[in-house]
């Protein structure tokens, strides 16, 4: 289990695809619980701390939780647990549905976490070797790479504002909104200028100059990759068949 992080990125993509597909296709709380437990085990196998992973996605998980509560309220079923007049606020069916929704998202987040053990260059190369046009693979990877950069720029802008002696926490609401609204255009404009400058820089380094591109990094499947992919494929098919035959 300890060496799962060294798997080929394509194997990791395959694992993510299998687990996410099962998470989306199967609508059974017990199976989803089992899948989530499997994801947690695999995370440990990849030497990823689940606590850290979920802490990093806590903003997303907050939204998921809010949606789950709404889902529970608006899709009642089964036995009513809490009512307001004739309106069922909480029901067993609603709870099951929201539980399934939360588990689905957790499975997707956890399985996507496997990819964090490969760097963006390895992921790009995996996609290229799967015959995805390299321009597209690079564009996708660059977009992913620049998300934290833009997040850092936002943080820099906030720090810079405060360093001008402006306490954002204690500004009156109207002024606070003025500052935030005013920030949008320069930060978005800055991001566009940066993206343009980056595009220029990569063009100047011969990007798309030749039809065929060579690569310093060439990925090769090992026996372990074949084994993991075979196991994942068998498990996915078996889980789907079991669901369709006995639970679906």
């Amino acid at each position, binding site marked *: 289990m300890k060496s799962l992080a060294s798997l080929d990125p394509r194997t990791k993509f395959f694992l993510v695809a299998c687990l996410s597909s099962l998470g989306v296709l199967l609508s059974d709380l017990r199976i989803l619980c089992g899948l989530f437990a499997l994801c947690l085990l695999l995370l*440990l196998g990849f*030497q*990823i*701390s689940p606590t*850290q992973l979920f802490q*990093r996605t806590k903003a997303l998980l907050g939204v998921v939780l809010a949606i789950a509560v709404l889902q529970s309220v608006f899709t009642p079923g089964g036995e009513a647990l809490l009512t307001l007049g004739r309106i069922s606020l909480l029901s067993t069916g609603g709870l099951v549905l929201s539980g399934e929704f939360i588990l689905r998202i957790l499975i997707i987040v956890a399985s996507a976490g496997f990819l964090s*053990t490969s*760097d*963006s*260059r390895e992921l790009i190369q995996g996609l290229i070797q799967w015959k995805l046009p390299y321009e597209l693979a690079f564009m996708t990877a660059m977009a992913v*790479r*620049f998300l934290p*950069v833009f997040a850092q*720029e936002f943080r*820099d*802008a906030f*720090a*810079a*504002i*405060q*360093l*001008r*002696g*402006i*306490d*954002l*926490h204690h*500004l009156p609401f109207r*002024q606070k909104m*003025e500052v935030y609204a*005013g*920030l949008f*255009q*320069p*930060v978005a*404009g*800055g991001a566009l*200028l*940066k993206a343009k*400058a*980056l*595009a*220029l*820089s*990569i*063009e*100047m*380094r*011969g*990007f798309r*100059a*030749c*039809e*065929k*591109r*060579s*690569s*310093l*990094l*060439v990925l090769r499947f090992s026996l372990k990759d074949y084994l993991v992919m075979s196991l994942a494929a068998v498990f996915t098919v078996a889980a789907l068949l079991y669901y369709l035959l006995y639970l679906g």
Partner: protein
Amino acid sequence: MLALSASDLSFQYDEKAAPLLKSVSFQLQTGKIIVITGPSGCGKSTFAACLAGVIPEHVSGIFQGEVSRFGTCGMVFQDPDTQIFMPLVEDELAFAPENLGLPVEEIKARIEEVLQETGLEALRKADPGRLSGGQKQLVALGAVLTLCPEILILDEALAQIDEISRRRMKALLCRLKEQGVAILMIEHETENMDIADEVFFMEEGSLSPLAEKRDAVSQKQREKKNPVPSPKKEILRVEELGFFYESKRLKKGCKQRSSDTSLFNDLSFSLYAGEITALVGGNGAGKTTLGKLLTGILTPQKGRVLLEEADGRSLSLAQKGSRIGYCFQNPANQLFTQSVEEEVSFGFKYGISKGVDGRAQAENMLSLFELDSLRESFPLNLSWGEKRRLVLAAVLALEPAYLILDEPTTGLDAVRMEVLSSTLESLRERGIGILVISHNKGFVQGIADRVLSLQEGGILDEISCFS
């Protein structure tokens, strides 16, 4: 043999804008180094972009004239942050030869050579995004060198590099020149001009040869004004400071970096009012990080920073910001308004200085840093040097008690550097303390009362400015 030529080159960004280049003709021969210098915002970077083909191919505007290139052209831009995007230094260097479809063995050979030439061997597996400004600049330069260009255009590509690496890079450029590479350098720093065969001066869209290269190279060393001795008032005190960057990897149980990557351990020193202190040191030694710790942008894991005897941990960033003015290494990272005028007066509108009529002060700063004509411009559209001046104006307008400037001279021409030196000296006379983080030896020697040298491993020594 001719490598690059431009004839009657004119360019303006749009019909309303003033022409940046006016019928410029220029030739660069193989095996020559030409430097173009001139005031910031005069069109040097635009000219370089025209020569490299970036304009008109990728940037729209009114372009007239003709540019001919006789060989592959590589260009290193001013801002390294917009040139690096790969996860490892090694991948960044491989990108250009990979694009050319070269065999893997050839790519490996080029990478090895460039790593050795640039002194980046130890960083080959490092994430370029987490390197210091100077190291990023070296990576950006190396990433173009692996292209093996016959024409090399460098737009202030040595500005943030430390003394040792700079000497190494200059020697490398001389070797490339001997191999027949044509090199064009856009430069402000006279220290980098000694390798040039010719130096041109650009002003108001026209290019003229400098009569004597030595005129630019051996500019008169400014006379340093000695501060009036007075009892030292401590503004900032650093006590047993320890800091390391936390790993971003989601690995189980490895939140902390190993101790060998600790930037500082038990760092202690004081900074005083009415004194200009220079912080020097090699690329990656942690100078910028130390600046951010002093201002409170970063929080130390160990020790504390005291601002006028108050523990920094008990003060908000805004409270610290109202006492300490800080200029980031990359000025673009601290511009957040829609016009130059708004940027300079922002602190008076919303900040602790709110209510103070800052108009006169803002006007003074706009005039001092020659930004009057740009007051309606969008700050992020300015040149690097103009952005630098704008940040200085915006920070100084708030009259901080202490000022921290991270590489304030990058992008500034000699005249503006002189204005900056005089401004800093007058601030010192008014009792304001200043910490200047810089690689610019001439500038540091001209203004610093005290020089602190930060070495790798977080060792801080006070050194003699002129030793």
